[in-house]
Structures are given as structure tokens and as C-alpha cells.
């Protein structure tokens, strides 16, 4: 051991985080050492708060500190639209657009047949009572990959008997990209999803 035991311990903890190797972990630990005590206390408290205060919303399964979450308890939001997403980070991404004013439902992942992840591993059954409760439209906003496609196909069939309108977000070209560099699968879906102008 070339440094203090506490620094080694801290580096070991950092090294457990995704994407952090041994060198980065040591760099972070030494940076913490240089920080002011108040800053370190704030950081430590933030870490503890995440574990102590954050839980899943009992309605939409998004992460929240209050139950129901702020989106579910906001009376100004349109209760007749539910946007189904895979992860809480997708809610964050969609909220940044400020385009969608309905509610969300977070599945906690997507169907992944090759990994053996089926509907029982997702929060699918929690969605069904919500849909039968006066909802007009369910928007499926899954990632555009095999897992997302499998989930979309499954949910669209599952929701059919409820008589609710089920839509999916458009797939196609990202803004700022060039058409000539798009692959066939993306372009063909962009053509399929064309809209009148």
C-alpha cells in the first residue's frame, strides 16, 4: 500500500461504480482528499439521501421522493394519456422536450428474450388497471432495438382488448444527421412513418 488506508478504501468503493477503473478511482479518491470538508459532507449526505429518500412511485413506478410522484399528483397534467417507457431516465429525456403533458408508466426495462427477461420481470401488470381507468391513449416509447420492438409488439397486443388507442413514437432519422448516411432499416421506417405537411 503506497497511500493511506482510508484513501485505498475510498478508491475501492469508487472502483465498484460502472465505468470506473482502478486509476480513475484513485484519482477521484485523491480529489476528495483535496475538497473542503463541507463539500465532502454535502456529497456524503447526497449519497445517503438517494438511498434513504428515493423510492418508486406506486402509480407510475418512476423514481420519486414523494408518493405519488410529482407528475402523477400534478392535476394540470392530462390524465387521459399514458406514455410507457423503459427506464426513469427516459422520463427525464421526454420531460426535457416539454411536449408531453400526460402521465408516464415506467416498466423498469424491456422484454429481452435472449436474456430470458419476460413480462413478469417488468411492471406490466401495474399498467393494466391504469389503462382501464378512463385513459384515451397509450403511447409506447421504447428504444428502437429488438428488445424495444418485442415490448411494443407485446404491449400493443395486450392492450388491444381494453379498446384504448395505442400508438408508438415515430422511428427515423435523428435531427442534424444526413440522409445519405442513414442505414436501410432506419430509412425504411422513416418512410413508413412519413406525415403529411
Amino acid at each position: 500500500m503506497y497511500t493511506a488506508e482510508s484513501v485505498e478504501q475510498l478508491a475501492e468503493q469508487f472502483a465498484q461504480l460502472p465505468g470506473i477503473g482502478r486509476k480513475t478511482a484513485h484519482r477521484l479518491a485523491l480529489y476528495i482528499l483535496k475538497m473542503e470538508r463541507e463539500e465532502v459532507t454535502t456529497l456524503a449526505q447526497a449519497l445517503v439521501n438517494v438511498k434513504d429518500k428515493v423510492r418508486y412511485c406506486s402509480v407510475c413506478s418512476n423514481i420519486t421522493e414523494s408518493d405519488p410522484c410529482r407528475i402523477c399528483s400534478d392535476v394540470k397534467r392530462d390524465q387521459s394519456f399514458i406514455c410507457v417507457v423503459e427506464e426513469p431516465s427516459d422520463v427525464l429525456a421526454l420531460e426535457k422536450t416539454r411536449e408531453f403533458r400526460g402521465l408516464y408508466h415506467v416498466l423498469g426495462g424491456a422484454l429481452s428474450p435472449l436474456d430470458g427477461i419476460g413480462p413478469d420481470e417488468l411492471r406490466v401488470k401495474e399498467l393494466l388497471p391504469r389503462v382501464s381507468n378512463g385513459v384515451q391513449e397509450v403511447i409506447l416509447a421504447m428504444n428502437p432495438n429488438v428488445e424495444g420492438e418485442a415490448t411494443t409488439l407485446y404491449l400493443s397486443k395486450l392492450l388491444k382488448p381494453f379498446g384504448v388507442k395505442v400508438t408508438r413514437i415515430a422511428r427515423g432519422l435523428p435531427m442534424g444527421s444526413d440522409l445519405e448516411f442513414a442505414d436501410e432499416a432506419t430509412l425504411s421506417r422513416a418512410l413508413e412513418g412519413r406525415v403529411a405537411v
Partner: protein
Amino acid sequence: MIEKTDAIVLKSMRYRDTSKIVTFYTRRYGKIKAIAKGARDSKSKFGAALEPMTLSSLVIYKKEQRELQLVSQCDIVKPYKRIHSEMERMAVALSIVELINQLTHDEEENLALFLLLVKTLDCLEKSERMFESHFFAFEIRLALLFGFALHLENCISCGRKLELNGAKTAYILDLSKGGIYCPTCSATAGKLGAQGHSQYRLRAEAAQSLKLLHHLDMDNIQNLEYTTEAGNELNETLRLYLQYHIEGLKPLKAAKVFQSLHV
């Protein structure tokens, strides 16, 4: 060294923030794993070329002693759009790629297997019906390539030509010998029967379908007709047959997930 080859994507998993680790079955090198940096970025140059069940043209930086290669470029050759957008086709194709991923070792070239995989996906994409038949046909041809082909022409005991047309007849399939007994020998084998875990009773319709799946051209597999019961019997028989001959073959996760969907 920079190498170029066609490849079917078997599996794709997230790695760090924007990358993917992709398992390919390639024409030139068999199965290889490679990292595609930045593949999950919305403006990634790889687009959908790294999605499972896609035939792509792959360019990799390949080092002999490295287990994980680096993807330099990957362009779609065949996107298999219907396979990716219809549940029944997807269920079959995912079972096929999972099976290949389980059965093959890294960097063992097998051109015949690559061509079989591509042909099966081509036929599944074009097919209008009986999607599961493509999986059965694939399993039968896979057994042939791996050296334990099914023999369905003649009785494996007396050598008599098998007609397999008696509607009420049940046949005995011997998993260890990879063949069927004629009705006469089946009766004897059935009595002895019990002799083995390797014997499996097969109704005439399933036995006949098995023979046709073996002989029909891959393009005509969709024209084969059989009842749901025969389909279930074929599924079970072929699963047992592969499990008997391939040590450690695990049940397919994709098949289990799709069975659980009930929609």
C-alpha cells in the same frame, strides 16, 4: 489487421454509456465478439446494423490474441424487416440465433453453418405462414452439419423403406441411433421399450412431417401442413434430439419468454 466479412448479429449488449459488445456469426471466422464504440449514440454510424438477426457487412480491427475485437464499420446487407416487426417471426429467429450462440465456440469457421443461418432467415422473412417450421428445418439441418443427422428413409433396425403414412400408427424414434423404427420393429422396440431413455414415441403425422422437413427445399418449408399437436410433438422431439447429442445444451431462453407472453 483490418478484416472484412459478412456476419449475422447473434447478440448485442450494452457496454458503458454509449457502446455495445456484439456477438457475430461471420462467414470467414465463425463466431466473434467485438466492441462497437459509440453504437448507442443516436447519431452512431452503425445505425441498426448491430441489431440481432441482421445480416451485415462487418469491418473489424482483428488481433489474433485478443478475445474482444473492435468494430470499425458495419453496414446492413439484409435488415430482415418482417422478422424484426412481427412477433411470431421474431420468436423463431431469436431462438435460432440463441441456439447458434450456444452451440458454437469463438473463431471456429463453419461456412456451411453460416450459409444455413442466412438461408433460414431469408426463408423466414419471405414466408407467409408456418413460421415454426423454419426452426424445425433449421434444427434438422444443424444436426446434419454437427454430425448426428437424422435417418428417416429406412427403418434403423430391419432397413425396410419407411412409408410413415399409417394415420393410427405410432413410431419409435431412437435418439441415440438418430432414426425411426418401421411399424413392425417399432412394436418390438416399444415392448422392449422401456429400455431406454433414448426412445421416443412419435405419431405418424409428426414422423411424416419430420421426414418432409428433412427433404423439402428450404424455400418450400412454408407449404408443409401439420396439426398443432404434431407441431408440439416435433418441437419436443427435436429439442430432445439436440439435447441428447449436444452435451450441456440449455433450454432456449427466447423460446421460454415467448411462451410466457400468451398474447
